[in-house]
């Protein structure tokens, strides 16, 4: 099954409570997948800064060591905030590659979840209510965000197997469904120097879209390519720096509902996910068409 949600804010009244709205939406989808849960929140960017999200199984020791290591490097200003098993490292964009290199080479136990100016990803094993509480998602603000609660089918129940998957800067994807040609696609993408952290099919979908966009396609074109080359069942919600896109495969047996008001656009696997939103009874509610790309951007 799996449950997915997304919220795109058009007004400050939604942005200032984005985390709270998304938390309620995701918690309402808990019985679609109790294995793990995750969210991507797009907050306000800081000029010339970017954020690296890292995850650790032993946060107390790992993050202390990481902080000490980064402090020992001269002229490398950074800010490190710890949220349970995750840490957000905010730093100058120009130092991004240097620091990701340090993390990969010196701290093999740390997993880089995402890199981006706006996006922060929080995901862990456990039910949505536990994940939301662990990271205080309900207190977060942002312009848009997406979330996922997982019923694992294709790979192990681990933190890295949880969604959203991020394979490009400020890009992430959540998936309901299963892909049948992910192994062959993964091999092709590895030949193109894409890096994979898991055996998961949804990571291949995220990587596929990132690769197409690296080759110059727009998000719309990349999603249209996905319709041709991905074999299997999918409803995707894809987050980018500016907004989110929705795509269902041509058979469209994985459910999807969209709602729009003058304040927001919301996505849910089911209508239940939308019932906590303000003025939902006055919203235009509809089911996205199969094999059709939808996108809302700021």
């Amino acid at each position, binding site marked *: 099954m799996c449950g997915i949600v997304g919220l795109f804010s058009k007004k400050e009244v939604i942005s200032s409570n984005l985390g709270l709205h998304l938390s309620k939406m995701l918690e309402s989808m808990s019985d679609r997948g109790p294995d793990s849960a995750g969210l991507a929140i797009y907050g306000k960017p800081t000029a010339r800064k970017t954020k690296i999200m890292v995850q650790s199984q032993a946060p107390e020791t790992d993050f202390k060591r990481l902080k000490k290591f980064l402090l020992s490097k001269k002229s490398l200003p950074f800010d490190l905030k710890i949220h349970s098993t995750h840490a957000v490292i905010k730093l100058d964009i120009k130092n991004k590659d240097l620091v990701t290199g340090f993390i990969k080479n010196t701290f093999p136990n740390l997993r880089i979840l995402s890199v981006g100016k706006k996006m922060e990803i929080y995901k862990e094993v456990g039910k949505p209510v536990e994940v939301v509480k662990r990271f205080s998602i309900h207190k977060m603000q942002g312009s848009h965000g997406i979330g996922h609660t997982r019923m694992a089918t294709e790979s192990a129940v681990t933190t890295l197997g949880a969604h959203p998957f991020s394979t490009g800067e400020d890009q992430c994807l959540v998936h309901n469904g299963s892909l049948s040609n992910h192994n062959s696609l993964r091999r092709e993408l590895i030949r193109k120097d894409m890096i994979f952290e898991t055996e998961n099919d949804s990571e291949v979908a995220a990587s596929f879209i990132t690769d197409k966009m690296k080759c110059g396609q727009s998000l719309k074109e990349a999603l249209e390519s996905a319709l041709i080359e991905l074999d299997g069942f999918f409803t995707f919600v894809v987050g980018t720096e500016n907004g989110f896109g929705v795509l269902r495969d*041509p*058979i*469209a*047996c994985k*459910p999807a*509902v969209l709602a729009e008001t003058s304040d927001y656009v919301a996505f849910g696997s*089911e*209508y*239940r*996910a*939308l*019932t906590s939103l303000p003025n939902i*009874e006055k919203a235009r*509610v*509809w*089911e996205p068409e*199969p094999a059709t790309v939808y996108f809302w951007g700021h």
Partner: protein
Amino acid sequence: MHTLDFKKLSLREINKTLQGSDNNSSFTIKNPKGSHALAAGINKKIDVKVLGSVGYYCAGMNKKSSIKIEGSAGPGLGENMMSGNIHVTGDVSQYAGASGHGGNILVEGNASSRCGISMKGIDIVIKGNVGHMSAFMAQKGTLVIFGDAGHALGDSIYEANIYIAGKVSSLGADCVEKKMTKKHIINLKNILSNANLTDDNLGRFKRFGSSRSLYNFKVDNAKI
């Protein structure tokens, strides 16, 4: 008239009340908020009005009862319905009326994919459009579509009738257009009348059904 409110009662309590009620009673259900399997398995001649949208499998296996949903319905509305009627003022999701044996469903909005899949005698009237693969393997009954139909309408259809006023994206295997005779106009009029609908321009409807070419094994199809 009894009122059952999700703010005070659980889904199980509401369904138990509906299933255990006396014939000819009436119920209004408040705050359904997309709940699953609401009013499923009713076997009484009762009236149920639902104020708001419902989730999966609403009114599944319905027998005798009359259910009105003032909102939209999720996947599997009226699945395997035997008799009675269901009226939805909004849209319905996938496979509405799937394998329904009898009774009728009226949807004022659109229905998505696989509407009336494997229907076995139910009459379904959709005022808007239907999605792809509607009336797939339909065996008996009628699907009336005022709007357009998605791809592969009536794929592998048996003896059900499809009446459609709008455009058909494509027909499924073995589904063909058939002549609309006086008999069929009367049939359509009766089905609409059962759904409390009248229409002065039934002549615009086209009829589709099975060409029956998949009925028998053909040795030519077995050639390697």
